[in-house]
C-alpha cells in the first residue's frame, strides 16, 4: 500500500512521517512518532485510554486516521509536565491515588485537563459526567474524581494568588 506524508506537531515538536492512509492516529503517535504514553484499550472508541487533544479538543486517536490529523497540533500525556515538574493535575493524581495500573491514566488526564479549562470549578457530578467516557477498571473512580476536584482547587488557589 502506498504511503502518504503526514506532518503534525506533537507537544510542540514537528513530526513528519510517511504512513499508509489506513494507519490510525493512535498507531501513528505510538509507532511512527514513538510516543507510547498514549494507550490502546479497546480500539473501538469506548474506553478512552487513547484520548489525545487535537487542536485543543479531546479526540479518540483510535477512531481517527493519521492522515486526518495533517497539520494539526496535538497534545499527548508526554506533553503535560513541564520539564521534570509534574503539572498540578498530574500532582493531584499522585497525591490522591488517582491511578493504579496507569493504563487509563493518559486519557483520564487529558479529558480532565480539557474539563478544567472549560469549567475551572466543576461539581463532583460534572466531573463524573465528563469522565464517563473514560473507563478505569482499577480504581472505582472515587480517587480519580477526588484528584480532578483537588486539581481544580489548586488552580483556583493559584489564580487567587495571582
Amino acid at each position, binding site marked *: 500500500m502506498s504511503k502518504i506524508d503526514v506532518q503534525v506537531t506533537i507537544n510542540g515538536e514537528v513530526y513528519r512521517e510517511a504512513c499508509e492512509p489506513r494507519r490510525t492516529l493512535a498507531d501513528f503517535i505510538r509507532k511512527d512518532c514513538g510516543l507510547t504514553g498514549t494507550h490502546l*484499550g479497546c480500539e473501538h472508541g469506548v474506553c478512552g485510554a487513547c484520548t489525545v487533544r487535537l487542536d485543543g479538543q479531546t479526540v479518540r486517536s483510535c477512531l481517527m486516521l493519521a492522515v486526518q490529523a495533517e497539520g494539526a497540533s496535538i497534545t499527548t500525556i508526554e506533553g503535560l509536565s513541564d520539564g521534570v515538574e509534574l503539572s498540578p493535575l498530574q500532582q493531584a493524581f499522585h*497525591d490522591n491515588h488517582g*491511578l493504579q495500573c*496507569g493504563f487509563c491514566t493518559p486519557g483520564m488526564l487529558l479529558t480532565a485537563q480539557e474539563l478544567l479549562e472549560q469549567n475551572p470549578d466543576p461539581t463532583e457530578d460534572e466531573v*463524573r459526567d465528563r469522565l464517563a*467516557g473514560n473507563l478505569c477498571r482499577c480504581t*472505582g*473512580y472515587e480517587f480519580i474524581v477526588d484528584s480532578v476536584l483537588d486539581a481544580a482547587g489548586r488552580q483556583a488557589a493559584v489564580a487567587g494568588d495571582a
Partner: protein
Amino acid sequence: MAVQSDESTNLVGARVKRTEDGRLLTGRGQFVDDLVLPRMLEAAVLRSPHAHARIVGVDASAALAMEGVFGVLTGADIADEVEPQPVIYHVLPDQRATDTRAIATDRVRWVGQIVAAVVARDRYVAEDALAAIVVDYEPLPVVANLDAALAADAPRLYDDWPDNVVGNIEWSNGDADAAIAGADAVVARRMSVGRLLGCPLEPRGCVASWDPFTDDLDIWMSTQSPNLARDLLGETLRLPGHRIRVRVPDVGGGFGNKFDFYPEEIIASLLSKRCGRPVKLLEDRAESFVATGQSREVVIEATMAAKADGTIVALKAEVRTVCGGALGTVGVGPGWLSATMMTGVYKIPNVDVRLSPVLTNRAPMGSFRGWGQPEANFVNERLIELLAEELGIERNEMRRRNFPAPEEFPYETGVVFTYDSGQYGQCLDLCQDSVRESGWPQRLEAARAEGRSVGIGYGFHVEATAFGPSRILNLVGLNHSGFDEAVVRIDSTGRVTAFTGQVAMGQGIETALAQLTAQTMGVALQDVVVVSGDTATCPYTGYGTGASRGAAMGGASLMRATELLREKVKRIAAYQLEAAPEDLEIHNGRISVRGTPSIGVTLAEIGNAAYRRLSDFPADEDATLEERYVFDPENLAWSYGCTAALVEVDRRTGVTQVLDYVIAHDCGTVINPMIVDGQIHGGATQGIGEALYEELVYDDQGGLTTTSFADYTLPSACEVPRFTLHHMDTPAPHIPGGMKGMGEAGTIGGPAAIANAVDQALADIGVEVRAIPITPPRLLDMIETATREGGRS
C-alpha cells in the same frame, strides 16, 4: 498521616504515596505493546467462527504468498512440536482431560479458538493475511448451554467421554438430609451467576524472542505469574527452565485474567523460532472477549435449614459450573472454591456439597478476581436472608447467631478449610453503625414516602488470602506450589534492593514492599528499590501474583529476609564499633549503640566495608550483604468484611442504581491504607458490575453476542457511588507481619448485598433475585411477573 521520605519509622501503616506513579503519570511506563526489539515482527491469529466444527483443511498458500508475510502456523504444523495446553488444577478424583493444543488440530470447540497464526512485517499486514487463509469447516451440533450439555442425548464435546461432565466431587459432614427433615424452616433455591470477563484495560500480549542457535527463549509477557509461565512454557515447548527467561513490563491491570497461561504465548514463541526474529503477539479488545479466560457462570441448587431460634442446622448444595470447550490453566479450580466455600462464615454442622463442572461450546474458563468465592457468597448470603425472613428474625441478628465466636478460631468449616482468625460480630457492628450514622434508614423512609423503591442490603464475606501452604495445595490437587521466596541486598553504597517474585500490575506492590523493607531495615523509603518481574534475576514465588497473596506472602518473606540481613549488618557494625550486636539499633540508615547515638556507623560505610574495602570487616563473615528467605505458610489467611448497599430501583425501566455503599473490613496489618482503600474501591466496583451490568451473552449456536465495550458494559464514573470504608486490623496469627490479603474482597461481598437490597426495594411485590447480573430487562421481567402474580408465592 504525612510521611517524610527520609524517615525510616512508622512507614508501615502510613498513607505513603506510590513510587510507581511518576512514570505512569508522564507516559514513561513501558507496557508490552510499547516494547520494540530490533527486527521484530508482529503476529495475528485466526479464530474459529464456529462453536463446534471439524477442521477438514486449512489452506494458507495465498497468505504465505503475500508481501510482508514471514510465516504461517496451523494446527498440523505444531501438533508434534508442543504438549497440550497445561491445566494446573486436578481437584476432581475422576477429572477428565481436554488436551487441546495452542492451535486447534482437528476440531474447534468454541468460537474464538485459534486455528492459524500469521507473522508479518506489522499487525496490519498480518491481519490482511488472516483474511486470505481458507479454513474448511464441517459444522458439528452445538452444545450451547448447561441444559443442552446435560441433556440425555447431548452431543459430546469429546468423543471418548461418556458425557460432558468433567468429573464429580462431594463433601459431607454430619447428616444434612436428616437435619433438614428435622428443621423448623427450610429454603431451597436454584440460583445462577452470569458469565464474566475480568477486562483489564490493557489487553493481553507478549513479545517472544527465540534464539535458534542456542534455543534460548526470551519472552516479555503481560502476566501476573512469570515463574509459573516459565515452567509451563518449558513443559509445553519441551525446553529446560534455564533456557527460558520471562520478563514482565508494566502491566495494565490483571484481575486474574493475566494469571493464566494462554496459547498465544506458545504461538509467538514458535513463530519466533521459525523466523529467527522477535515476534509480538497481542490480543485486541474484540478478541479478548473470546480469547481471555471467562469466569463465574454457575448454577447452584442449594438448601439451607434452621431451627426456630435461627440456628442453621444444614446446608446442601449442588454446584454446576458452566465450563467452556476445554479446561483452561486453572481448570475447574474456581468451581472447586465455590463449592468448598458454600458454608460462608456460618457454623453449619451438617453439610453436603457436590460439584460437577460441565463442558459447553463456549470459551474456556479462567481466573478472575474473586475466583469462585463471589458465586458461593451470593448464594449463601441470599439464603440466610431468605431463611431469616421465613423465621421472622432480623437478618443481621440471624447472621450473628451463626457466626463462630472470636474464641472459636481457628475454626474448621467442615468442608476443607480452617479459618485462622476473625471477629465477625464486631465487623458486622461496624458496618451497621456506619449505615445508621450515614442516615440510610431515614433516607429509605423518605424515599418510600415519595413513592421511590429503595432498599438496603447486606452481605458478609470471607476471603481466602495468603495462598498458600504448598504441601496442602499439592494434596488438594494443585500441580504447583504456594510459597514465596524473597532476596534482599544492600549494595556498596548502603542502599537496599528488594527482589521479589511478585509482580506489579497496578496494585501498588512496589510501594508496599518498599515500605515494609525500609521499616524493617531501618532506612528511608527512597533508599529502597523493589525489583520484580524477571525470572532470571528475581526469586521464585509459587503460584504467581493472584489469590490475594502479593502483600501477605511477598511481604512476609521479604520481611524475614530483611530481618536476616539486618542481623548481619548489626554483626558487622558491632565488630567495627566494638559493641554487642544486641545493643545496636538502625535508624535512618545509621547503626548506633542504643542510648549512645553519637557512637555509630552508616549503612553506606557498612556497604563499603562489605564489598570494596574489607580491611574493617569481620573475618568470620562472608563479603557482600545479601539474604534470602522462603516462606511457606501453614494455612491460608482469611480476611473478612461486611458490605452494605443502598440501592434504588426504577420499576418502569428495571434500572438499579447504587446510591451508597459501606464496607467494613479486616485484612490484618495494613501496610498502606491508601493502597488498601484503592483496592477495595476497585474490587467493589467490579462487584457492582458483576451484580448489575456485566455479562457475556451467548446465543443458541454458541456465538458470543457481547464483543465490545458497548455490549459488555463496565461501570463508568456515573454508575459508581462513593464508598465509605471502615478498617479493622487484627493481625493474621501465622503470617510474619500479620498481613492478610484483600485484593478480591470487593468482588466477593458486593453481589449478595446488592441483590438483598433489590429484594428489599421490591418487597411489596415480592420480587426475589435469583440470578445476577440484575440487568434491566431481567429485573423488569421479574417485576412484571411479580406484579401479575400479585406478590410472593
